[in-house]
C-alpha cells in the first residue's frame, strides 16, 4: 500500500512537469462556425446593478465578447475592440462586452480602459451557460437575423484583415441602408 501511495505521489507531482507545454504567447484568430441557431437572450446586469435584458438580436450585427478582469489575454483586446467599435458602430455593428466577474471588480477595472461600448456583468454565469462558454475570452458573432454564426475562443486580433473582412461580410451593404 505504501508503495502504491508513493507511486501516486510521484505521478501527481510529476505530471505537470511532463504535460505542461508552453502556451503559445502569440495571439491568433481562430474562428469556428456555429450552427446558426438563434442567439440566446441575455439577462444580465449593468455595472451599476440595473437589469439589462436583450431578447432579440435582429437588426444589427452583434459581437458578444465574454471576458474577465483577471484574464490577461482579455485585457489586451480592449484597444482593438474599441477601434472596431468606432469603425463600424454607425454601419450596423453593436458590441456587448459580458464580464464573467463581480460588479466590484468590473467597476474598479473600467476606468483603466477607454471603451465606450456597453459592458454587462454576468454575475451568476447565465450568459456563459447559455452560450456554452468554456474559456475566456470568447467572442460570438451574430448576424442581423439574430443567428449565431461564428465563435472564437482566445484572443482575437480585431483589426486584422481577415477579421475585418469577416465582420464586413456580415454588415449591410450601402444599398441596404
Amino acid at each position, binding site marked *: *500500500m505504501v508503495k502504491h501511495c508513493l507511486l501516486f505521489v510521484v505521478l*501527481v*507531482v510529476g*505530471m505537470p512537469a511532463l504535460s505542461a507545454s508552453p502556451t503559445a504567447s502569440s495571439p491568433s484568430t481562430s474562428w469556428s462556425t456555429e450552427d446558426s441557431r438563434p442567439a440566446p437572450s441575455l439577462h444580465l446586469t449593468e455595472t451599476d446593478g440595473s437589469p439589462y435584458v436583450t431578447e432579440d438580436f435582429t437588426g444589427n450585427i452583434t459581437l458578444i465578447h465574454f471576458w474577465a478582469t483577471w484574464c490577461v489575454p482579455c485585457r489586451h483586446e480592449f484597444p482593438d475592440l474599441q477601434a472596431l467599435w468606432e469603425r463600424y458602430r454607425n454601419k450596423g455593428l453593436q458590441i456587448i462586452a459580458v464580464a464573467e*466577474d463581480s460588479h466590484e471588480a468590473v467597476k474598479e477595472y473600467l476606468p483603466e480602459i477607454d471603451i465606450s461600448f456597453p459592458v454587462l456583468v454576468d454575475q451568476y*454565469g447565465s450568459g456563459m*451557460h447559455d452560450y456554452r462558454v468554456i*474559456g475566456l475570452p470568447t467572442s460570438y458573432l451574430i448576424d442581423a437575423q439574430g443567428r449565431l454564426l461564428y465563435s472564437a475562443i*482566445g484572443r482575437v486580433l480585431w483589426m486584422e484583415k481577415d477579421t475585418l473582412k469577416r465582420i464586413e461580410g456580415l454588415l449591410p451593404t450601402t444599398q441596404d441602408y
Partner: protein
Amino acid sequence: MYCNFLNKGATRWLLSSILIFSSNQVFAMGECGLSCCLAGANSSGVTLAKNFGLAVQYEYSDMVTIRNGTNSVTPDQVIDQHWNMGSSYSVPTKMIMEKLSFIGAYPVNERWQILGIVPLVRNQMDMRQKSGMGMVMNMTMDTISGLGDMSALALYTAYTDAPVRPKERLTLGFGVKMPTGSNDARKSNGDLVHAMMQLGSESWDGLFTLNYMRAWYPLVTQVNAFYHLTTEGDGGYEFGNQYGVDVVGRYQVSNYVNLGLEANVIHADRDKDHNGNFSAPVTSMVDNTANTGLTSVFVSPGIQVKIPDSGGSVGLKYQHPVRQDVNGYQQVLDGRWLATVSWAW
C-alpha cells in the same frame, strides 16, 4: 491564448460537498465517510463541466486503535473487561475499508447542479475472540464487497459575486441517500455480519449541506457544514445522525498545483437497533449500540494537480485524526487516504 475555466480552480469546492456523502460506511463508524472526502475540497473540476463531469475517488481507511472515551486501549484489555466465563467475547483488531466512488455532475443551469454518487465498497475485519472456556484466537472475517448506498444531490448557488473565480460564494445542497447497498450479509454461522461491515444501511436518508467560500487568490478558504439525517433501515438498524464542519484552506502554488489543509470535525449520534437483529452486546464489542456515536477531529493535508489544457485533475489527501472521543469502546480511524481523478467535459 485564453483562460480555461477548468484551470482556474475557483469553484472546485463543490466536489467536496459531493464527496461528503459518497461514503456509505459513514453510518457504520461515525467518523468514516463524512468530511473524510472533503478533501476534494476545491479539487477536481467535475462540477464545472459544460456538459458532464465525472470523478472517481478511491478511499482507503485503516483502523486498528480502539478507544474508550478518548483513551486508547488494547483488544486484550477490552476482552478482559467484558469477558465472562461461559460466554465468548470478540473484539476487532484491524479493519480496512475501501471504497471506489463514481461521481457524476450535470449542470442544469447556472445555479443548479445535479450530482449522482455510486460507491463500490469492500470491508475487511480481523477479530480476536476469547471463548467461553477462556481460549483466545485470532480470526479473519469474510470480506464484504459490492455496491454501497447511492446518493443523489442537488446543489444551488445561493450567492456568488462572480461565476468564475469568485471571491465569495454560498452554496446550499440537499439530497437523498438511497438504500441500494444491502445490509443482510451473514457469517458462516448464519448470524448477521456487524452493521458497520454491511454494504449499506437499507434506509432512505436526507442529506443537507452548506458551503461558504471566500477567496484571496491564490488563497481560497471554505467552510462546509453538513447534516446527515438518518432513518431506520429495513433490518431495523438506524445509524446515528451525523453533523460535520470542515474548515478548508487551499493555496495555488502554481497554475497547475494546489496545496490544501483542512480541519474536519464530525459528530455522530448513537445508533439504534430497533429490532435487536444486529445486537449481541454480551459477546461482541462491535455488536453493541452503546459502543456507537462519537466526535472526531481530523487534520487533512492534500494536493491537487490539474492536467494542463484539459478538464482533468488528480488529487491526493490524507486524513489524520487529532482527537477522537467515543461512546463506550470503538475501533477508530487511524488514517485515511483519498485519491481522486476527475474530468469535466
